[in-house]
């Protein structure tokens, strides 16, 4: 048996022993997701147990080094672990912007001290993070941001406002882009970390068209941030942010998922049998969907071996989010009048309609499709012009 197969057997055995049966059932809604953090209310004892056991084993962040709370797995081992978890239907023990976004940036740009401190907190699900990038009026044009941190020697005093801060009202800490030099548009922004309980921080949820409020407006009124809470160099926060956006794009494009190759058409066979033109749309969607999964797999393999273009995640983000919007348009079409229901039990509280509306943000958040196409065209295809 190869080393990898030995690992597979071990991982399988560990999962079978440690993953509670309740954590092997499909996630029904957002309430089944474990986000961790100071104020998180576990939905069940099993959910808590599963997160804690994984954290102890390093399996909340399997491919991070052991010193930072991970299991130190190789990319191949991590993939095997994902496969085995998928086979058993194990839920993700811990979802977190810390894992998906801040973590990779800290691994790349953080000091050793920062890594030990913050990464372990993230791995254990102790601190829930949110991201402070966009500002009202800045939108896709991130470098036009105004939030300003005034230098006060050993700390900054931050004033300004962010928008589209995911779950800011539930987060413990924020990683935040703050202007620290007003004279340089691009190289005048720093990447700061601070506690959302710091005096002067307040949040206000934004109600979306889906009826939910996953985002907030976040206000900073003379917020004190110690100097050691900067990641990367002073005024070079844009480098960190861009690196991190790449990871966000992967996440939003849906490549972090379980593959998603299962056709939604099969479950809707009865409807599609009577709707030949809709069935054709579904068929063409399935072609695109299988394509995207293969594309994601190829991208990951190229990324890991350093063969992918550094801007390639922009392409994946564009393709993945547009595809996801299309999927949800089809789900609504196939669901017909029942999928239109917004509050009924029959429609599970309008889950199809709300998910459909939620996906419309996919091609806006983390860089709009238009910005992605600009980047692909300029950086990968090397088209001329500003």
């Amino acid at each position, binding site marked *: 048996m190869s080393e990898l197969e030995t690992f597979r057997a071990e991982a399988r055995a560990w999962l079978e022993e440690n993953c509670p049966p309740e954590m092997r059932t499909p996630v029904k809604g957002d309430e089944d997701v474990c986000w961790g953090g100071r104020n998180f209310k576990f939905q069940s004892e099993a959910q808590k147990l599963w997160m804690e056991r994984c954290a102890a084993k390093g399996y909340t962040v399997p491919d991070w080094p052991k010193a930072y709370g991970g299991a130190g797995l190789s990319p191949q081992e991590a993939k095997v672990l994902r496969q085995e978890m998928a086979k058993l239907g194990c839920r993700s023990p811990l979802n977190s912007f810390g894992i998906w976004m801040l973590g990779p940036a800290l691994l790349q740009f953080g000091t050793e001290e920062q890594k030990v401190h913050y990464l372990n907190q993230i791995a254990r699900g102790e601190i829930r993070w949110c991201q402070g990038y966009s500002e009202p009026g800045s939108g*896709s044009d991130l470098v036009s941001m105004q939030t300003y941190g005034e230098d006060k020697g050993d700390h900054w005093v931050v004033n300004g406002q962010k928008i589209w801060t995911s779950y800011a009202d539930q987060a413990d800490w924020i990683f935040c882009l703050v202007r620290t030099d007003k004279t340089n548009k691009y190289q005048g922004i720093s990447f700061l970390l601070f506690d959302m309980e710091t005096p002067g921080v307040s949040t206000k949820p934004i109600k979306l068209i889906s009826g939910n409020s996953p985002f907030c407006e976040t206000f900073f009124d003379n917020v004190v941030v110690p100097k050691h809470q900067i990641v990367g160099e002073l005024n070079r926060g844009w480098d960190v942010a861009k690196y991190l956006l790449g990871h966000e794009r992967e996440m939003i494009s849906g490549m972090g998922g379980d593959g998603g190759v299962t056709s939604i058409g099969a479950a809707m066979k009865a409807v599609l049998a009577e709707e030949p033109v809709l069935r054709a749309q579904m068929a063409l969607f399935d072609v695109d969907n299988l394509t995207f999964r293969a594309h994601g797999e190829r991208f990951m393999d190229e990324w890991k071996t350093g063969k992918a273009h550094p801007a390639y995640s922009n392409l994946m983000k564009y393709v993945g989010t547009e595809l996801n919007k299309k999927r949800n*348009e089809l789900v609504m079409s196939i669901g017909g*009048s029942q999928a*239109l229901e917004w509050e009924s039990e029959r429609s599970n509280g309008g889950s199809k309609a709300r998910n459909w509306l939620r996906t419309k943000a996919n091609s*806006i958040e983390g860089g709009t*499709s238009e910005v992605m196409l600009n980047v692909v065209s300029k950086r990968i295809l090397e088209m001329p012009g500003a």
Partner: protein
Amino acid sequence: MAMTLNDDQTMLRDSARDFMASEAPVTHFRKFRDMGCKDGFSHDLWKQFAEMGFTGILIPEADGGMGMGHIEAGIVLEEIGRNLSPSPFLSTSVAAVEALKLADKGMRERWFPGILAGETVIGLAIDEGVKHRPEKIACKAERSGNGFKLSGHKQFVLQGTSSDMLIVAARTAGAAGETDGLTLFAVEKGAAGMSMEAARLVDSAMAAHVTLDGIQVDADAVIGEVDGGWSVLGKLLDAGRVGAAAEMVGVGSGAMDMTFEYLKTRKQFDRVIGEFQALQHRAAHLYGEMEGARSIVLKAQSLMDDGHAKAELYVAAAKAKAGLACNLAVREGVQMHGGIGMTDEYDIGLYMKRDRSLNEFFGDAYYHADRVATMNGY
């Protein structure tokens, strides 16, 4: 007829436009939505519609109505769409009236005055599954005493719980899948054996699931001929389809205009975003799609008004095209608005929701494209 509005029609458009913009703009819709109104529309507004002469637009002059056609009904519907004005106009004054015009005098006298007065609301109990498939109607109407006993299940009955009467399509003969053997019935509110469950939809309209548990109706509840309901239903549905298409032209135009305005004012990267050529081309393409939709809807209305043999084909094409174009308009609208387009506070999302309901109502674009293919002989 020429494919342009004549002077009377232009006047009607102007007055409908002014009326909706002042009496039933999007803020009106928001108010009723946010108060969780159980009807999903304002009875006062419905009365105002009557005062404007809208409710009887398709009712023959001999029956006290305006005696106008589908072009005129569409003019009102377009403004309804543009302002997201909530009302029972499409079901009651367009689809139901088109069927009732084919009913006997007693039936017409029973219902037209209330509609003309803006007091009566009529619901359409047609669909039985989640998709529009009228030929698959299975609800039963068995002979019983002097009349019929109705049983079965209906859904997607807009304003069902607010309706004074439901037009119920049921089977007096034949089996699901056959067009012969259908009969339409006028079933009054509160009939014994009728139960309803109202569900709020994504666009805040109220749609009922209706259970018909052996409802006894008299023979004079029949609209048109027994077993010959398919042709009456066809008229009702085509009126509803071309009407929904006209409303979608309004919804799409409203969304498009709002978006173009936004492109001309929103700044990013130190430029008004409407300067970006990629957005300009998408805007121009969208405009072309909406102009096409407007044209085929007008053509279909005109053929319906002429009683032309090709009307059914064009109505199907119009419902499909208006659905596709309006859907593009709201998708581009939300995307081009960016983040704020996702917020409940901005109106563009409301247009997206309304589009979705209208696309589904009376059969979606794919259903009608399939019908176009069938009618075109393949």
